[in-house]
């Protein structure tokens, strides 16, 4: 029996999902796909990330091989122009004619472009395909100002994209009186407007564009209220229009407002023709999100396999992906009193607005809006969807519990098994918990692979994490803070074990206390433990080091390395500056002053590292440990030697401190600072340890950092002399090294410490644990055993050999390394 033909028109997100669903259910069809775009289906939802570094491959949802393996004929770059329903054939633009038994329309939608005079001008764009983005990118290079027409979900995303493209002056023009009119209320919109202004967007509401100005190229906009705005580019985001043109031609039932009419099986008015995704109109509704499209694909594929499944509409809750502002709406966001009771929380100072609508009997959550802080989105959405009975004080849902109790509301484990956790891939709570229980999966990666949950928009990942730990706890698995699957111990426990048993190598520790062959999580963690304990040369066990530690340099885009010599306290002689300049010139390196007050040389070939370093060492430099989880820099201000306000010599003290702790391996990197007075030009309070001169001595601050979650350091001791300061620092640093989890900065370590700063002060200053002498002795050992790793590496020919790119062609460099020119220097070739 020959197979029946199914033809799918459109290789977008939903068309591709349909193919996946169909081949997973049956092999009784011969499948052909026509796609108008020149490439395989890609992730349109994350289209904007194309502007911040994602490539076409990253966004791609599949591969040609997948289509080959599944015997699907894929014809790309060719649109279907006609459906002949009497002969049951389709005709393509390039002249192909193909017969079908069943036809699936997955043609998606196109941006709606309003009919405004001048809309055809150069510099006016839509935002839907990779080609659109390429065109925008090319044009944006010469633009200073730009605007997006439309302040809805997509419009705001496009506006963020303009900022990412480097357009400094970006406007959003909205016809309605508020942003995201379909998702959020007036109050929420005001708050969002404030937040977006901080991001650098200029918002114009109630603006009706009357024409687009300029000769051939756009120069500006004119509005109905006679105002004008000068512009170099415009992105139209005024809504979508379902692509129903071929359906319309073929006489299928379509709505006057656009959209191919379908029933609950996704059948059009011709029962052999289906429509799914954004082109389909179900009960007068177009679903402009990917999750309902995937559900439609499931329903249509099931129907074609005689499995009974129906489409009954879909939840349209959304979380905006704008970076810097959380915005989410869920369930019925707009019901208002007297049909419900609304609880509103507003903090204009922090820019937070939360509204939940609950039934008048206070039992159920109907929906709501979150702006500025959408952490609770997943849980609230689940509460609505699963009709979970609310706790007695529903305001706790948005305020968090007060009075130090655990967060109120219902934990993830109280959700029913059929609660939809990942709506993109339609994965239920039951499926996730089942994978944890019966397949013993306990990582996000594992769950992604086995259930596909979290592989779409990624919004459900936090809740998936909670489900994994929750299920493990329920199964009686004691969820311990363990290093990884190879060691059932925390970092602190392992450090103690290694110390007590005098274990000096990774293999020895793994044989005695671990299992399996190790991995990229436990190897560097153990390497750091061993280095902190014994201060042995890390190159002796180079293969357990993170790549950067292994080659004593930071790997860069393209596979070259950076070279960062230590410049203690940021002080450098003219002679040393000259040497750096000469070396950089000779080896063609890009040079830059770092944020840590020293000089970074980028673009060194692996095999050049030893000679570059031997030159630097000859000139008196040492490794800067920029690659290690160890002391980086102790930043200084110029201090009393020159500065009219300086109280003490902060440079000398910074150099002394940096020299003492250089090369000290720790759970995460360590940074310090010394300022000569309270004006704090060395930013000491944003460091793991910061020292600030006072009239009487130094104030010592600890546990601060910059980075993504900045934290100011807290005062540990006041008006102490230099000796006491070093003593406290010795104790503080060693105590941190002994007790912190891997990759935990001092601030996070303190956060988790019971008793907090008061406890730490007690240990360090009052020696409450009676370990102060021990800690000081350990630090003394470190100081006495310090050697420059690079010096050791270049002196040993065996170690030097490790830096060749090819083992079998030691003199050859990696030929795939590419540089481009920029401002008289080089930069790495793009990914």
């Amino acid at each position, binding site marked *: 029996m020959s197979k029946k033909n199914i033809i799918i028109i459109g290789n977008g997100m939903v068309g591709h999902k349909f193919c996946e669903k169909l081949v997973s259910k049956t092999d009784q069809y011969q499948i052909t796909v026509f796609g108008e775009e020149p490439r395989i289906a890609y992730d349109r939802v994350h289209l904007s990330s194309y502007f911040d570094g994602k*490539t076409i491959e990253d966004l791609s949802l*599949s*591969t040609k091989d*997948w289509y080959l393996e599944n015997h699907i004929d894929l014809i790309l770059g060719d649109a279907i122009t006609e459906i002949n329903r009497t002969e049951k054939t389709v005709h393509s633009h390039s002249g192909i004619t193909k017969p079908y038994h069943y036809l699936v329309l997955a043609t998606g939608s196109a941006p709606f472009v309003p009919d405004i005079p001048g809309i055809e001008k150069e510099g006016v764009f839509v935002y839907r395909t990779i080609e659109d983005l390429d065109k925008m990118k090319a044009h944006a290079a010469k633009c200073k100002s730009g605007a997006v027409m439309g302040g809805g979900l997509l419009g705001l995303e496009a506006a963020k994209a303009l900022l990412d493209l480097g357009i400094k002056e970006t406007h959003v023009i909205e016809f309605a009186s508020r942003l995201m009119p379909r998702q959020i209320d007036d109050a929420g919109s005001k708050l969002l407007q404030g937040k977006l202004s901080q991001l650098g967007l200029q918002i114009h509401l109630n603006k009706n564009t009357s024409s687009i100005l300029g000769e051939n190229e756009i120069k500006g906009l004119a509005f109905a209220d006679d105002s004008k705005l000068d512009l170099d580019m415009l992105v139209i985001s005024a809504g979508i229009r379902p692509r129903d043109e071929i359906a319309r031609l073929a006489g299928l039932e379509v709505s006057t407002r656009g959209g191919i009419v379908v029933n609950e099986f996704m059948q059009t008015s011709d029962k052999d023709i289906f429509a799914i995704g954004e082109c389909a109109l179900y009960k007068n509704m177009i679903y402009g999100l990917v999750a309902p499209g995937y559900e439609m694909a499931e329903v249509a594929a099931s129907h074609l396999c005689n499995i009974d499944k129906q489409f009954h509409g879909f939840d349209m809750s959304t979380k905006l992906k704008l970076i810097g502002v959380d915005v989410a709406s869920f369930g019925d966001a707009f019901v208002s009193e007297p049909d419900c009771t609304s609880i509103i929380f507003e903090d204009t100072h922090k820019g937070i607005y939360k509204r939940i609508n609950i039934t008048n009997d206070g039992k159920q959550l109907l929906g709501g809006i979150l702006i500025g802080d959408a952490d609770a989105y997943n849980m609230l959405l689940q509460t609505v969807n699963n009709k979970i009975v609310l706790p007695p004080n529903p305001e706790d849902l948005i305020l968090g519990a007060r009075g130090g109790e655990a967060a109120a509301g219902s934990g993830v484990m109280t959700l029913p098994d059929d609660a939809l956790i990942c709506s993109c891939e339609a994965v239920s709570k039951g499926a996730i918990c089942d994978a944890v229980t019966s397949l013993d999966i306990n990582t996000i*990666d594992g769950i*992604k*692979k086995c259930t596909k949950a979290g*592989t779409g928009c990624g919004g459900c990942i936090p809740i998936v994490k909670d489900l994994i730990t929750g299920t493990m706890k329920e199964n009686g698995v004691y969820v311990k803070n363990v290093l990884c*699957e*190879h060691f059932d111990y925390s970092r602190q426990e392992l450090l103690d074990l290694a110390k007590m048993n005098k274990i000096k190598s990774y*293999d020895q520790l793994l044989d005695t206390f671990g299992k*399996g*062959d*190790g*991995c*990229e999580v*436990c*190897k*560097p963690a153990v390497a750091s433990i061993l280095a902190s304990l014994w201060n042995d040369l890390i190159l002796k066990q*180079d*293969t*357990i080091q*993170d*790549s*950067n530690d*292994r*080659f004593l340099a930071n*790997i860069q*885009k*393209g*596979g070259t390395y950076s070279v960062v010599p230590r410049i203690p306290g940021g002080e450098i002689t003219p002679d040393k500056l000259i040497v750096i300049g000469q070396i950089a010139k000779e080896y063609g390196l890009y040079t830059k002053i770092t944020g840590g007050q020293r000089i970074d040389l980028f673009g060194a070939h692996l095999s050049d590292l030893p000679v570059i370093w031997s030159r630097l060492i000859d000139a008196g430099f040492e490794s800067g440990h920029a690659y290690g989880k160890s002391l980086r820099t102790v930043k200084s201000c110029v201090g009393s030697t020159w500065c009219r306000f300086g109280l003490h010599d902060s440079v000398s003290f910074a150099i002394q401190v940096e020299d003492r702790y250089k090369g000290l391996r720790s759970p995460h990197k360590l940074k310090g600072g010394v300022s000569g007075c309270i004006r704090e030009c060395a930013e000491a309070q944003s460091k793991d340890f910061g020292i600030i001169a006072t009239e009487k001595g130094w104030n010592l601050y600890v546990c601060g950092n910059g980075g993504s979650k900045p934290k100011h350091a807290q005062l540990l001791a006041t008006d102490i002399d230099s000796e006491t300061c070093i003593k406290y620092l010795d104790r503080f640093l060693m105590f941190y090294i002994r007790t912190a989890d891997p990759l935990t900065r001092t601030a996070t370590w303190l956060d988790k410490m019971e008793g907090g700063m008061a406890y730490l002060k007690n240990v360090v200053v009052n020696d409450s644990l009676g370990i102060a002498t021990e800690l000081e002795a350990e630090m003394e050992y470190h100081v006495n055993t310090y050697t420059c790793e690079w010096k050791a590496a270049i002196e040993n020919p065996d170690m030097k*050999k*490790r830096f060749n*790119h*090819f*083992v*079998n*062609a030691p003199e*050859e460099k*990696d030929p*795939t390394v590419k540089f481009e020119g920029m401002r008289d220097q080089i930069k790495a070739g793009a*990914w």
Partner: protein
Amino acid sequence: MMSEMLILDREIESTVEVQNLFFACYSDDVPENGGACVKYHGEQIAIFNFTRRGEWFATQNLCPHKQQMALSRGMIGSVGDDCEPKVACPFHKKSFSLKSGDCLSGDDYKIKTYPVIVNNGRVYIEIKD
């Protein structure tokens, strides 16, 4: 297994090309429990000396994630109860099975793998076209 090795043993020196065996390097050229990169005509092959398991593996050197020639500089280890051997790319830690080449971080990529034969301290990579 043992007897196969012995046959190869005698033939290797003279029939390298015929056997599609490519002499890569000496075994002590590759760090213990680590990798190195081998140049094979226009290509780059990563070779791993998994001392802990007493096994050798070879894969393409190119990481499919961002097309970086880097896998030889990655960290090796194992995953799961059956100790699937793997390598993690130094750039973004995507990890790959050294046996099947499958990506173990949930992506669709796959890398090429090659059989490795070590004989008298000489390391050969078997290349099938």
